[in-house]
């Protein structure tokens, strides 16, 4: 479904990605784990078109999206939940959710989907008319996910969904990721919490300083001695 072929991305004169090859198949949850600064977020931002690669090719659903503008990539069905919950702070919760469905023309189905996505996060429906910026960190993350789901993505890119959240929120959010995946959305997940990420994913990639150093099934990575030592903390 998604295929990265020797993608290189630069920030100024520094290579953030030094040739990434990565595949995500339909129906999978794939995770990219790695330390801070390894290039995980840059990989997602390059896929979603926020950052432009200088070399390589990205294919989504058989279409070359390497140089497509970010909004057209969303139109193709590839949606990112950005790191740090970039919600719209001065728009209401409901307006935030509606913006997720911006490209959709089927008004009636959109209404039903608002109910559907908020069924994952009942807290949000209690706060529809509150401004997004007044939500707690965990609620903002829920809102960012709910908003992304409103566009009915084929592939959901998630950047550090557990970042800065209390443990009870983290498990809730990972439950939702599993549920969303069971209902047919493919997920590419970037996480620092490697244990949790590998527990929901079917496959994983390990990144170090702009390169992929390891690729395997999630359970094999969990049992890999070097991964254990470096990222799982036991």
């Amino acid at each position: 479904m998604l295929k990265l072929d020797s993608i290189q991305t630069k920030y100024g004169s520094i290579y953030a990605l030094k040739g990434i090859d990565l595949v995500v198949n339909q129906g999978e949850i794939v995770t990219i784990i790695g330390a801070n600064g390894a290039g995980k977020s840059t990989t997602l931002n390059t896929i979603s078109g926020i950052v432009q690669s200088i070399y390589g090719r990205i294919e989504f659903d058989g279409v070359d999206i390497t140089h497509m503008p970010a909004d057209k990539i969303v139109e193709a069905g590839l949606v990112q939940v950005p790191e740090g919950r970039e919600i719209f702070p001065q728009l209401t919760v409901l307006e935030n959710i509606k913006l997720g469905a911006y490209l959709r023309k089927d008004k009636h189905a959109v209404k039903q989907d608002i109910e559907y996505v908020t069924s994952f996060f009942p807290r949000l429906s209690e706060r529809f008319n509150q401004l997004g910026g007044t939500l707690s960190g965990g609620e903002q993350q829920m809102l960012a996910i709910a908003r992304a789901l409103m566009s009915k993505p084929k592939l959901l890119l998630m950047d550090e969904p557990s970042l800065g959240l209390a443990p009870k929120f983290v498990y809730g959010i990972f439950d939702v990721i599993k549920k969303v995946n069971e209902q047919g959305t493919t997920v590419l997940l970037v996480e620092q919490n490697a244990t949790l990420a590998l527990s929901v994913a079917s496959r994983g990639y390990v990144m170090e300083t702009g390169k992929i150093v390891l690729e395997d099934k999630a359970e094999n990575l969990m049992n890999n001695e070097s991964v254990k030592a470096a990222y799982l903390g036991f």
Partner: protein
Amino acid sequence: MYIDVYNILILSGINIIMVLGLNLITGVTGQLSLGHAAFIGIGAYTSSLLMMMFNVPFGVALIAAALMAGLIGGLFSIPILRLRGDYLAIATLGFCEVVRVIFTNMKVTINGEVQRLSVSLANIPQHINLPLILILVCFSILFMISLERSKFGLALRSIREDEVASQMMGIDIARHKVMAFAISSAFAGLGGALMASNITAIQPIDFGFKLSIGILCMLVLGGMGSIVGVIAGTIILTSIPELLRFAAEYRMIMYGVVLIIMMVFRPRGLFGNIRVNV
């Protein structure tokens, strides 16, 4: 003391139309424009010259003024789409000066007589009355309210909040900004056409950056992004110089003092409840 309420109402109405236009691009979409005097001027000259040179009826001249200002506003916004904040402000300010200089150097033929626009263009037909202004103000307010509540308006507000996140929603930022600039400029042009017909004589210097700043002050005082704020801020700042005529040159001091007090105690404006990062 004699207060010309009728005149204040007419001036306020015309200014409200212009400030509503500015509010769309600056208050709603978050793009600071210091160039709106240019679009007001384009509207003023378009309608005045159409009426004086070709005897076009006033209604048609008004529409033409709005369309012309909207078209130029939309085209002008294309090369500056990437600019934000102070850079955008300076680019729009520059545009304002360019337009003023173009007017200053233009020559037109009216009734067989060649006339330079650098001198005052006088005897513009007067067609302004309070009912007309009230109708146009109501139309503008209703138009802006429905625009803001539409999906397009929601997208503009999301651009103000966060451009990258908006793009991640699939919003075509460039297209939305151009549209917002065009509509915003069209209202400025409409206001300019009304202003010209009201004062019946205009010159290029009337459309310098002082006017841009003047309408921006009305918007900031009322509260960016708030239509009620636009109305209140415009009426207050339009009235102060008129009400304080007896104070002669001291009245502009009062004007400044009001602005300073406002910014210290209510930086979001009288009715503004959002923070606009322009």
